[in-house]
Protein backbone atom coordinates (compact mmCIF):
# COMPACT_ATOMS: atom_id res chain seq x y z
CA UNK A 1 0.00 0.00 0.00
CA UNK A 2 2.63 2.47 1.06
CA UNK A 3 4.69 2.24 -2.14
CA UNK A 4 1.59 2.96 -4.18
CA UNK A 5 0.82 6.04 -2.11
CA UNK A 6 4.39 7.33 -2.28
CA UNK A 7 4.75 6.77 -6.00
CA UNK A 8 1.48 8.46 -6.80
CA UNK A 9 2.03 11.28 -4.34
CA UNK A 10 5.41 11.98 -5.90
CA UNK A 11 4.55 11.72 -9.55
CA UNK A 12 0.89 12.78 -9.75
CA UNK A 13 -0.28 14.68 -6.69
CA UNK A 14 2.82 16.78 -6.05
CA UNK A 15 3.10 17.85 -9.71
CA UNK A 16 -0.49 19.04 -9.98
CA UNK A 17 -0.06 21.06 -6.79
CA UNK A 18 3.20 22.35 -8.13
CA UNK A 19 1.51 23.25 -11.43
CA UNK A 20 -1.05 25.28 -9.51
CA UNK A 21 1.81 27.02 -7.68
CA UNK A 22 3.81 27.77 -10.81
CA UNK A 23 0.72 29.17 -12.48
CA UNK A 24 0.78 32.03 -9.97
CA UNK A 25 4.17 33.26 -11.14
CA UNK A 26 5.60 35.23 -13.97
CA UNK A 27 8.41 33.12 -15.36
CA UNK A 28 11.43 33.53 -17.57
CA UNK A 29 12.55 30.14 -18.87
CA UNK A 30 12.52 27.95 -15.79
CA UNK A 31 13.02 30.81 -13.33
CA UNK A 32 10.14 32.17 -11.32
CA UNK A 33 10.57 35.92 -11.73
CA UNK A 34 7.70 37.42 -9.75
CA UNK A 35 4.64 36.33 -7.86
CA UNK A 36 1.67 37.72 -9.75
CA UNK A 37 -1.20 35.91 -8.07
CA UNK A 38 -4.07 35.54 -10.46
CA UNK A 39 -2.21 37.53 -13.13
CA UNK A 40 -1.83 34.62 -15.51
CA UNK A 41 -5.50 33.76 -15.12
CA UNK A 42 -6.52 37.34 -15.85
CA UNK A 43 -4.28 37.30 -18.89
CA UNK A 44 -5.93 34.07 -19.97
CA UNK A 45 -9.41 35.59 -19.85
CA UNK A 46 -8.38 38.47 -22.07
CA UNK A 47 -6.28 36.37 -24.42
CA UNK A 48 -8.24 35.99 -27.68
CA UNK A 49 -5.89 33.22 -28.81
CA UNK A 50 -6.78 31.13 -25.76
CA UNK A 51 -10.48 31.46 -26.51
CA UNK A 52 -9.73 30.48 -30.09
CA UNK A 53 -7.84 27.41 -28.78
CA UNK A 54 -10.71 26.49 -26.51
CA UNK A 55 -13.29 26.75 -29.28
CA UNK A 56 -11.10 24.59 -31.52
CA UNK A 57 -10.88 22.04 -28.71
CA UNK A 58 -14.65 21.97 -28.39
CA UNK A 59 -15.12 21.55 -32.13
CA UNK A 60 -12.48 18.83 -32.08
CA UNK A 61 -14.11 16.97 -29.18
CA UNK A 62 -17.69 17.18 -30.42
CA UNK A 63 -16.77 16.69 -34.05
CA UNK A 64 -14.86 13.52 -33.22
CA UNK A 65 -17.68 12.26 -31.02
CA UNK A 66 -20.20 12.94 -33.76
CA UNK A 67 -18.22 10.68 -36.08
CA UNK A 68 -17.11 7.99 -33.66
CA UNK A 69 -20.34 7.35 -31.73
CA UNK A 70 -22.71 6.51 -34.60
CA UNK A 71 -19.93 4.64 -36.37
CA UNK A 72 -19.03 2.75 -33.19
CA UNK A 73 -22.64 1.77 -32.51
CA UNK A 74 -23.13 0.64 -36.11
CA UNK A 75 -19.97 -1.42 -36.22
CA UNK A 76 -20.62 -2.98 -32.81
CA UNK A 77 -24.08 -4.01 -33.98
CA UNK A 78 -22.65 -5.54 -37.13
CA UNK A 79 -20.13 -7.45 -35.04
CA UNK A 80 -22.89 -8.65 -32.74
CA UNK A 81 -24.60 -10.50 -35.59
CA UNK A 82 -24.23 -14.27 -35.57
CA UNK A 83 -22.29 -14.66 -38.80
CA UNK A 84 -19.29 -16.76 -39.67
CA UNK A 85 -15.81 -15.23 -39.41
CA UNK A 86 -17.10 -12.91 -36.73
CA UNK A 87 -13.99 -13.30 -34.57
CA UNK A 88 -11.80 -12.56 -37.57
CA UNK A 89 -13.69 -9.38 -38.43
CA UNK A 90 -13.67 -8.26 -34.83
CA UNK A 91 -9.91 -8.63 -34.65
CA UNK A 92 -9.28 -6.76 -37.86
CA UNK A 93 -11.73 -3.99 -37.10
CA UNK A 94 -10.35 -3.12 -33.67
CA UNK A 95 -6.75 -3.32 -34.88
CA UNK A 96 -6.26 0.49 -35.06
CA UNK A 97 -6.63 0.50 -31.29
CA UNK A 98 -3.00 -0.60 -30.79
CA UNK A 99 -1.68 1.94 -33.28
CA UNK A 100 -0.16 4.81 -31.30
CA UNK A 101 -1.05 8.44 -31.96
CA UNK A 102 2.47 8.95 -33.28
CA UNK A 103 2.03 6.23 -35.86
CA UNK A 104 -1.53 7.28 -36.71
CA UNK A 105 -0.16 10.74 -37.49
CA UNK A 106 2.71 9.41 -39.60
CA UNK A 107 0.56 6.90 -41.54
CA UNK A 108 -2.10 9.48 -42.30
CA UNK A 109 0.39 12.20 -43.05
CA UNK A 110 1.64 9.95 -45.82
CA UNK A 111 -1.84 8.84 -46.96
CA UNK A 112 -2.85 12.50 -47.26
CA UNK A 113 0.39 13.56 -48.86
CA UNK A 114 -0.59 16.15 -51.50
CA UNK A 115 1.93 14.90 -54.07
CA UNK A 116 1.89 11.11 -53.93
CA UNK A 117 -0.87 10.05 -51.51
CA UNK A 118 -3.76 7.76 -52.43
CA UNK A 119 -6.24 10.00 -50.61
CA UNK A 120 -5.43 12.88 -52.94
CA UNK A 121 -5.62 10.54 -55.91
CA UNK A 122 -9.06 9.43 -54.77
CA UNK A 123 -10.17 13.05 -54.35
CA UNK A 124 -8.95 13.79 -57.85
CA UNK A 125 -10.87 10.88 -59.35
CA UNK A 126 -14.00 11.98 -57.52
CA UNK A 127 -13.59 15.41 -59.07
CA UNK A 128 -12.41 17.46 -56.10
CA UNK A 129 -9.13 18.19 -57.80
CA UNK A 130 -5.72 17.84 -56.26
CA UNK A 131 -6.42 19.45 -52.90
CA UNK A 132 -4.11 19.57 -49.96
CA UNK A 133 -6.34 18.85 -46.99
CA UNK A 134 -3.86 19.59 -44.25
CA UNK A 135 -2.57 22.89 -45.59
CA UNK A 136 -6.01 24.36 -46.13
CA UNK A 137 -7.03 26.17 -42.92
CA UNK A 138 -10.68 25.30 -43.34
CA UNK A 139 -10.22 21.65 -44.24
CA UNK A 140 -7.41 20.91 -41.77
CA UNK A 141 -9.52 20.64 -38.61
CA UNK A 142 -12.10 18.43 -40.32
CA UNK A 143 -9.33 16.22 -41.68
CA UNK A 144 -7.75 16.01 -38.25
CA UNK A 145 -11.09 14.96 -36.79
CA UNK A 146 -11.37 12.23 -39.42
CA UNK A 147 -7.89 10.92 -38.65
CA UNK A 148 -8.60 11.03 -34.92
CA UNK A 149 -11.80 9.08 -35.51
CA UNK A 150 -9.82 6.37 -37.28
CA UNK A 151 -7.43 6.06 -34.37
CA UNK A 152 -10.01 6.05 -31.60
CA UNK A 153 -13.18 4.32 -32.83
CA UNK A 154 -12.04 0.86 -31.60
CA UNK A 155 -12.48 1.92 -27.94
CA UNK A 156 -16.11 2.73 -28.66
CA UNK A 157 -16.62 -0.50 -30.60
CA UNK A 158 -15.09 -2.71 -27.88
CA UNK A 159 -17.10 -1.20 -25.04
CA UNK A 160 -20.39 -1.01 -26.93
CA UNK A 161 -19.97 -4.55 -28.24
CA UNK A 162 -19.40 -5.79 -24.69
CA UNK A 163 -22.63 -4.09 -23.66
CA UNK A 164 -24.56 -5.49 -26.63
CA UNK A 165 -23.43 -9.01 -25.85
CA UNK A 166 -25.10 -8.87 -22.47
CA UNK A 167 -28.51 -8.26 -24.04
CA UNK A 168 -30.26 -11.62 -24.12
CA UNK A 169 -31.07 -12.73 -27.66
CA UNK A 170 -34.58 -13.71 -26.50
CA UNK A 171 -35.38 -10.08 -25.89
CA UNK A 172 -34.69 -9.20 -29.50
CA UNK A 173 -36.36 -12.30 -30.87
CA UNK A 174 -39.46 -11.83 -28.76
CA UNK A 175 -40.00 -8.34 -30.08
CA UNK A 176 -39.36 -9.54 -33.60
CA UNK A 177 -42.11 -12.11 -33.20
CA UNK A 178 -44.36 -9.33 -32.01
CA UNK A 179 -43.81 -7.66 -35.37
CA UNK A 180 -41.66 -4.75 -34.22
CA UNK A 181 -39.53 -3.15 -36.91
CA UNK A 182 -35.76 -3.27 -36.73
CA UNK A 183 -35.55 0.45 -36.10
CA UNK A 184 -38.10 0.36 -33.26
CA UNK A 185 -36.28 -2.61 -31.85
CA UNK A 186 -33.06 -0.57 -31.80
CA UNK A 187 -34.64 2.59 -30.42
CA UNK A 188 -36.81 0.95 -27.76
CA UNK A 189 -34.76 -2.02 -26.61
CA UNK A 190 -31.11 -1.83 -27.61
CA UNK A 191 -30.47 1.85 -27.06
CA UNK A 192 -31.92 2.11 -23.54
CA UNK A 193 -30.02 -1.02 -22.50
CA UNK A 194 -26.65 0.26 -23.70
CA UNK A 195 -27.26 3.80 -22.53
CA UNK A 196 -25.00 3.59 -19.44
CA UNK A 197 -22.17 2.23 -21.58
CA UNK A 198 -22.71 4.96 -24.14
CA UNK A 199 -22.41 7.60 -21.44
CA UNK A 200 -19.17 6.03 -20.22
CA UNK A 201 -17.83 5.94 -23.78
CA UNK A 202 -18.77 9.58 -24.33
CA UNK A 203 -17.00 10.73 -21.19
CA UNK A 204 -13.89 8.61 -21.77
CA UNK A 205 -13.55 9.83 -25.33
CA UNK A 206 -14.24 13.43 -24.37
CA UNK A 207 -11.33 13.33 -21.94
CA UNK A 208 -9.11 11.56 -24.45
CA UNK A 209 -9.84 14.12 -27.16
CA UNK A 210 -9.69 17.17 -24.92
CA UNK A 211 -6.28 16.20 -23.52
CA UNK A 212 -4.81 15.02 -26.80
CA UNK A 213 -1.48 16.48 -27.84
CA UNK A 214 0.56 13.88 -29.71
CA UNK A 215 -1.63 13.30 -32.75
CA UNK A 216 -2.17 16.99 -33.41
CA UNK A 217 1.44 17.91 -32.68
CA UNK A 218 2.84 15.42 -35.17
CA UNK A 219 0.20 15.60 -37.90
CA UNK A 220 -0.38 19.35 -38.17
CA UNK A 221 1.73 20.96 -35.45
CA UNK A 222 -1.31 23.20 -34.84
CA UNK A 223 -1.12 24.69 -38.30
CA UNK A 224 -1.85 25.94 -40.84
CA UNK A 225 -1.85 29.35 -39.10
CA UNK A 226 -3.11 27.96 -35.78
CA UNK A 227 -6.21 26.48 -37.46
CA UNK A 228 -5.77 23.26 -35.50
CA UNK A 229 -4.05 24.57 -32.36
CA UNK A 230 -6.35 23.02 -29.75
CA UNK A 231 -6.02 24.05 -26.10
CA UNK A 232 -3.95 21.02 -25.09
CA UNK A 233 -1.46 21.63 -27.88
CA UNK A 234 -1.26 25.32 -26.97
CA UNK A 235 -0.43 24.31 -23.39
CA UNK A 236 2.35 22.10 -24.68
CA UNK A 237 3.69 24.71 -27.07
CA UNK A 238 3.71 27.49 -24.47
CA UNK A 239 5.92 25.35 -22.26
CA UNK A 240 8.20 23.48 -24.59
CA UNK A 241 8.39 25.71 -27.66
CA UNK A 242 8.18 29.20 -26.14
CA UNK A 243 9.22 28.39 -22.54
CA UNK A 244 6.33 30.43 -21.10
CA UNK A 245 6.22 27.99 -18.24
CA UNK A 246 3.98 29.97 -15.88
CA UNK A 247 1.37 30.62 -18.52
CA UNK A 248 1.49 27.03 -19.68
CA UNK A 249 0.90 25.86 -16.11
CA UNK A 250 -2.14 28.15 -16.01
CA UNK A 251 -3.53 26.59 -19.15
CA UNK A 252 -2.76 23.16 -17.71
CA UNK A 253 -4.79 23.94 -14.59
CA UNK A 254 -7.74 24.99 -16.75
CA UNK A 255 -7.52 21.66 -18.56
CA UNK A 256 -7.29 19.88 -15.21
CA UNK A 257 -10.45 21.56 -13.94
CA UNK A 258 -12.26 20.50 -17.07
CA UNK A 259 -11.07 16.92 -16.51
CA UNK A 260 -12.24 16.89 -12.91
CA UNK A 261 -15.71 18.02 -13.92
CA UNK A 262 -15.98 15.32 -16.53
CA UNK A 263 -14.55 12.62 -14.28
CA UNK A 264 -17.10 13.48 -11.59
CA UNK A 265 -19.79 13.05 -14.20
CA UNK A 266 -18.27 9.68 -15.07
CA UNK A 267 -18.34 8.53 -11.46
CA UNK A 268 -21.96 9.66 -11.14
CA UNK A 269 -22.92 7.68 -14.20
CA UNK A 270 -21.17 4.56 -12.94
CA UNK A 271 -22.78 4.84 -9.52
CA UNK A 272 -26.30 5.60 -10.59
CA UNK A 273 -26.82 3.37 -13.54
CA UNK A 274 -26.89 -0.39 -13.26
CA UNK A 275 -24.13 -1.90 -15.37
CA UNK A 276 -24.90 -4.47 -18.00
Amino acid at each position, binding site marked *: MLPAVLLIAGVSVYPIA*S*AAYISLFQTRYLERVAFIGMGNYRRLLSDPAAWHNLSLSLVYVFGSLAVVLPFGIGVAMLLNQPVRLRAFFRTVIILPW*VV*SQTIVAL*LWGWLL*NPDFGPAIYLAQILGFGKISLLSNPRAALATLIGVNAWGSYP*IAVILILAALQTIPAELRDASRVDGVSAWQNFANITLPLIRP*TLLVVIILLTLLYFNMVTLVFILTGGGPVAATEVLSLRTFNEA*FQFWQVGYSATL*GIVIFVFNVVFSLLYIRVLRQEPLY
Partner: protein
Amino acid sequence: MRRLAIYLGLVCVAAVAVLPILWGLSTALKTKGEVVTYPPRWIPNPPTLQNFAVVLQEPAMPRHLGNSLLVGLCTIVVTLVVAAHAGYALARFSFPGRQALAFGILATAMIPGISILVPLYYLAAKAKIYDTYGILVAVYSAWQVPTTMWLMRGFFEAVPRELDDSALIDGCSRWGAFYRVILPLSQPGLAAAALLTFIFVWNDFLIAFTLTVSDSRRMIAVGLYQFVSQYGIEWGSLMAAVILALLPVMGLFLLLQRRFISGLTAGAMKG
Protein backbone atom coordinates in the same frame (compact mmCIF):
# COMPACT_ATOMS: atom_id res chain seq x y z
CA MET B 1 -29.88 -10.96 -48.47
CA ARG B 2 -29.62 -9.63 -44.95
CA ARG B 3 -26.56 -11.81 -44.37
CA LEU B 4 -24.96 -10.41 -47.50
CA ALA B 5 -25.50 -6.87 -46.29
CA ILE B 6 -23.88 -7.70 -42.97
CA TYR B 7 -20.84 -9.16 -44.70
CA LEU B 8 -20.61 -6.21 -47.03
CA GLY B 9 -20.69 -3.83 -44.07
CA LEU B 10 -18.07 -5.81 -42.18
CA VAL B 11 -15.77 -5.96 -45.19
CA CYS B 12 -16.03 -2.19 -45.71
CA VAL B 13 -15.24 -1.42 -42.08
CA ALA B 14 -12.37 -3.91 -42.07
CA ALA B 15 -10.99 -2.16 -45.15
CA VAL B 16 -11.17 1.20 -43.39
CA ALA B 17 -9.31 -0.33 -40.46
CA VAL B 18 -6.42 -1.93 -42.34
CA LEU B 19 -5.91 0.04 -45.56
CA PRO B 20 -3.91 2.85 -43.92
CA ILE B 21 -1.62 0.26 -42.36
CA LEU B 22 -1.33 -1.71 -45.60
CA TRP B 23 -0.47 1.48 -47.47
CA GLY B 24 2.36 2.03 -45.00
CA LEU B 25 3.55 -1.55 -45.50
CA SER B 26 3.32 -1.23 -49.26
CA THR B 27 5.40 1.96 -49.17
CA ALA B 28 7.99 0.29 -46.94
CA LEU B 29 8.42 -2.43 -49.57
CA LYS B 30 8.90 -0.04 -52.49
CA THR B 31 12.05 1.23 -54.15
CA LYS B 32 12.87 4.91 -53.79
CA GLY B 33 11.63 5.63 -57.28
CA GLU B 34 8.36 3.82 -56.87
CA VAL B 35 7.51 5.57 -53.60
CA VAL B 36 7.14 8.85 -55.48
CA THR B 37 5.12 7.49 -58.40
CA TYR B 38 1.85 9.21 -59.18
CA PRO B 39 -0.83 7.90 -59.47
CA PRO B 40 0.01 5.76 -56.44
CA ARG B 41 0.40 2.00 -56.87
CA TRP B 42 -0.71 -0.39 -54.12
CA ILE B 43 1.38 -3.42 -55.00
CA PRO B 44 5.13 -2.80 -54.92
CA ASN B 45 6.77 -3.92 -58.14
CA PRO B 46 9.43 -5.13 -57.63
CA PRO B 47 9.10 -5.46 -53.82
CA THR B 48 12.27 -4.76 -51.89
CA LEU B 49 13.49 -5.07 -48.31
CA GLN B 50 15.96 -2.27 -48.90
CA ASN B 51 14.13 0.17 -46.61
CA PHE B 52 14.08 -2.25 -43.71
CA ALA B 53 17.78 -2.95 -44.19
CA VAL B 54 18.57 0.79 -44.16
CA VAL B 55 16.57 1.38 -40.99
CA LEU B 56 17.99 -1.60 -39.12
CA GLN B 57 21.58 -0.97 -40.13
CA GLU B 58 21.59 2.45 -38.54
CA PRO B 59 22.27 2.10 -34.83
CA ALA B 60 19.48 4.51 -33.84
CA MET B 61 16.39 2.47 -34.62
CA PRO B 62 17.36 -0.81 -32.90
CA ARG B 63 18.49 1.23 -29.89
CA HIS B 64 15.15 3.05 -29.65
CA LEU B 65 13.27 -0.22 -29.94
CA GLY B 66 15.48 -1.66 -27.20
CA ASN B 67 14.89 1.36 -24.95
CA SER B 68 11.14 1.05 -25.29
CA LEU B 69 11.31 -2.66 -24.58
CA LEU B 70 13.46 -2.15 -21.49
CA VAL B 71 11.40 0.71 -20.06
CA GLY B 72 8.19 -1.17 -20.91
CA LEU B 73 9.29 -4.30 -19.04
CA CYS B 74 10.55 -2.34 -16.01
CA THR B 75 7.27 -0.43 -15.89
CA ILE B 76 5.31 -3.69 -15.95
CA VAL B 77 7.31 -5.01 -13.01
CA VAL B 78 7.00 -1.84 -10.93
CA THR B 79 3.33 -1.37 -11.76
CA LEU B 80 2.33 -4.94 -11.01
CA VAL B 81 4.33 -5.23 -7.80
CA VAL B 82 3.01 -1.95 -6.43
CA ALA B 83 -0.55 -2.34 -7.69
CA ALA B 84 -0.98 -5.99 -6.69
CA HIS B 85 0.09 -5.37 -3.09
CA ALA B 86 -2.05 -2.27 -2.83
CA GLY B 87 -4.98 -4.09 -4.43
CA TYR B 88 -4.63 -7.00 -2.01
CA ALA B 89 -4.49 -4.68 0.97
CA LEU B 90 -7.65 -2.93 -0.21
CA ALA B 91 -9.43 -6.21 -0.85
CA ARG B 92 -8.52 -8.04 2.38
CA PHE B 93 -7.51 -5.79 5.21
CA SER B 94 -9.76 -3.30 6.86
CA PHE B 95 -7.99 -0.23 8.13
CA PRO B 96 -9.22 3.27 8.84
CA GLY B 97 -9.64 5.39 5.74
CA ARG B 98 -9.43 2.43 3.40
CA GLN B 99 -12.23 3.54 1.15
CA ALA B 100 -11.04 7.14 1.11
CA LEU B 101 -7.54 6.01 0.20
CA ALA B 102 -8.80 3.77 -2.59
CA PHE B 103 -10.81 6.58 -4.11
CA GLY B 104 -8.02 9.08 -3.52
CA ILE B 105 -5.60 6.98 -5.50
CA LEU B 106 -8.10 6.40 -8.24
CA ALA B 107 -8.86 10.11 -8.35
CA THR B 108 -5.28 10.81 -9.42
CA ALA B 109 -6.12 9.04 -12.65
CA MET B 110 -8.13 12.13 -13.59
CA ILE B 111 -5.03 14.32 -13.59
CA PRO B 112 -4.28 14.75 -17.28
CA GLY B 113 -0.71 14.30 -18.44
CA ILE B 114 -0.63 17.59 -20.26
CA SER B 115 -1.38 19.48 -17.03
CA ILE B 116 1.63 18.14 -15.15
CA LEU B 117 4.26 18.01 -17.87
CA VAL B 118 5.86 21.24 -16.71
CA PRO B 119 6.10 20.22 -13.02
CA LEU B 120 7.41 16.79 -14.02
CA TYR B 121 10.07 18.49 -16.06
CA TYR B 122 11.04 20.62 -13.04
CA LEU B 123 10.95 17.60 -10.78
CA ALA B 124 13.17 15.56 -13.06
CA ALA B 125 15.63 18.41 -13.43
CA LYS B 126 15.75 19.15 -9.70
CA ALA B 127 16.13 15.51 -8.71
CA LYS B 128 18.83 15.14 -11.36
CA ILE B 129 16.99 12.30 -13.02
CA TYR B 130 16.13 14.16 -16.21
CA ASP B 131 16.97 12.04 -19.24
CA THR B 132 17.17 8.71 -17.39
CA TYR B 133 15.26 5.44 -17.66
CA GLY B 134 14.34 5.86 -14.00
CA ILE B 135 12.15 8.93 -14.43
CA LEU B 136 10.35 7.33 -17.35
CA VAL B 137 9.61 4.16 -15.39
CA ALA B 138 8.48 6.20 -12.37
CA VAL B 139 6.09 8.38 -14.35
CA TYR B 140 4.65 5.56 -16.45
CA SER B 141 4.14 3.38 -13.37
CA ALA B 142 2.49 6.15 -11.40
CA TRP B 143 0.05 6.61 -14.24
CA GLN B 144 -0.72 2.93 -14.57
CA VAL B 145 -0.94 2.04 -10.88
CA PRO B 146 -4.37 3.57 -10.05
CA THR B 147 -6.35 1.69 -12.68
CA THR B 148 -4.26 -1.48 -12.30
CA MET B 149 -4.73 -1.42 -8.53
CA TRP B 150 -8.46 -1.10 -9.00
CA LEU B 151 -8.46 -3.94 -11.52
CA MET B 152 -6.45 -6.21 -9.19
CA ARG B 153 -8.68 -5.40 -6.25
CA GLY B 154 -11.63 -6.60 -8.31
CA PHE B 155 -9.82 -9.84 -9.09
CA PHE B 156 -8.80 -10.43 -5.48
CA GLU B 157 -12.29 -9.80 -4.21
CA ALA B 158 -13.56 -12.45 -6.61
CA VAL B 159 -11.29 -15.01 -4.92
CA PRO B 160 -13.16 -16.45 -1.91
CA ARG B 161 -11.77 -15.43 1.46
CA GLU B 162 -11.92 -19.06 2.59
CA LEU B 163 -8.92 -19.76 0.37
CA ASP B 164 -6.83 -17.25 2.33
CA ASP B 165 -8.07 -18.73 5.55
CA SER B 166 -7.33 -22.31 4.65
CA ALA B 167 -3.85 -21.33 3.45
CA LEU B 168 -3.29 -19.59 6.79
CA ILE B 169 -4.47 -22.66 8.69
CA ASP B 170 -2.16 -24.83 6.61
CA GLY B 171 0.70 -22.82 8.00
CA CYS B 172 1.22 -20.18 5.35
CA SER B 173 2.02 -16.69 6.49
CA ARG B 174 -0.06 -13.76 5.20
CA TRP B 175 2.57 -13.19 2.55
CA GLY B 176 2.65 -16.90 1.74
CA ALA B 177 -1.09 -16.98 1.25
CA PHE B 178 -0.88 -14.00 -1.04
CA TYR B 179 2.05 -15.20 -3.16
CA ARG B 180 1.25 -18.92 -3.30
CA VAL B 181 -2.52 -18.97 -3.44
CA ILE B 182 -4.10 -15.66 -4.38
CA LEU B 183 -1.64 -14.31 -6.94
CA PRO B 184 -1.52 -17.48 -9.06
CA LEU B 185 -5.31 -17.47 -9.16
CA SER B 186 -5.28 -13.91 -10.41
CA GLN B 187 -2.96 -14.58 -13.32
CA PRO B 188 -5.42 -13.55 -16.03
CA GLY B 189 -5.80 -10.17 -14.37
CA LEU B 190 -2.05 -9.75 -14.02
CA ALA B 191 -1.55 -10.66 -17.67
CA ALA B 192 -4.19 -8.22 -18.87
CA ALA B 193 -2.70 -5.45 -16.75
CA ALA B 194 0.81 -6.23 -17.97
CA LEU B 195 -0.28 -6.09 -21.61
CA LEU B 196 -2.11 -2.79 -21.25
CA THR B 197 0.86 -1.32 -19.41
CA PHE B 198 3.29 -2.40 -22.08
CA ILE B 199 1.20 -0.97 -24.90
CA PHE B 200 0.83 2.26 -22.97
CA VAL B 201 4.58 2.66 -22.57
CA TRP B 202 5.41 1.56 -26.09
CA ASN B 203 2.93 4.02 -27.59
CA ASP B 204 3.62 7.04 -25.39
CA PHE B 205 5.19 10.03 -27.05
CA LEU B 206 4.57 12.99 -24.77
CA ILE B 207 6.38 11.89 -21.60
CA ALA B 208 9.31 10.42 -23.47
CA PHE B 209 9.62 13.55 -25.63
CA THR B 210 9.52 15.86 -22.62
CA LEU B 211 11.66 14.00 -20.11
CA THR B 212 14.49 12.65 -22.24
CA VAL B 213 16.80 14.34 -24.65
CA SER B 214 19.77 12.15 -25.52
CA ASP B 215 19.69 9.60 -28.29
CA SER B 216 20.76 6.79 -25.95
CA ARG B 217 17.58 7.26 -23.87
CA ARG B 218 15.22 7.90 -26.75
CA MET B 219 12.04 5.84 -26.91
CA ILE B 220 10.69 4.47 -30.17
CA ALA B 221 7.80 6.91 -30.62
CA VAL B 222 10.14 9.88 -30.25
CA GLY B 223 12.63 8.15 -32.52
CA LEU B 224 10.01 7.97 -35.27
CA TYR B 225 9.20 11.64 -34.86
CA GLN B 226 12.88 12.59 -34.94
CA PHE B 227 13.21 10.51 -38.08
CA VAL B 228 10.84 12.91 -39.80
CA SER B 229 12.37 16.13 -38.59
CA GLN B 230 16.03 15.20 -38.95
CA TYR B 231 16.49 13.92 -42.44
CA GLY B 232 13.62 15.53 -44.25
CA ILE B 233 11.11 12.89 -45.08
CA GLU B 234 12.30 9.70 -46.74
CA TRP B 235 8.89 8.04 -46.88
CA GLY B 236 10.09 4.55 -47.78
CA SER B 237 12.39 4.14 -44.80
CA LEU B 238 10.06 6.08 -42.49
CA MET B 239 7.27 3.62 -43.26
CA ALA B 240 9.67 0.72 -42.73
CA ALA B 241 10.44 2.17 -39.30
CA VAL B 242 6.72 2.65 -38.59
CA ILE B 243 5.99 -0.96 -39.49
CA LEU B 244 8.84 -2.18 -37.27
CA ALA B 245 7.49 -0.12 -34.37
CA LEU B 246 4.01 -1.46 -34.99
CA LEU B 247 4.93 -5.15 -35.21
CA PRO B 248 5.50 -5.89 -31.49
CA VAL B 249 2.23 -4.38 -30.26
CA MET B 250 0.28 -5.80 -33.14
CA GLY B 251 1.78 -9.24 -32.56
CA LEU B 252 0.89 -9.11 -28.85
CA PHE B 253 -2.59 -7.95 -29.72
CA LEU B 254 -3.22 -10.72 -32.24
CA LEU B 255 -1.90 -13.41 -29.92
CA LEU B 256 -3.59 -12.31 -26.73
CA GLN B 257 -6.64 -10.44 -27.91
CA ARG B 258 -9.03 -11.82 -25.33
CA ARG B 259 -6.85 -10.60 -22.47
CA PHE B 260 -6.72 -7.13 -23.94
CA ILE B 261 -10.42 -6.80 -24.32
CA SER B 262 -11.21 -8.12 -20.86
CA GLY B 263 -8.63 -5.76 -19.36
CA LEU B 264 -9.93 -2.78 -21.25
CA THR B 265 -13.59 -3.36 -20.49
CA ALA B 266 -12.89 -4.16 -16.84
CA GLY B 267 -10.72 -1.05 -16.56
CA ALA B 268 -13.38 1.23 -17.99
CA MET B 269 -16.36 -0.27 -16.23
CA LYS B 270 -15.08 -1.11 -12.80
CA GLY B 271 -12.47 1.61 -12.67
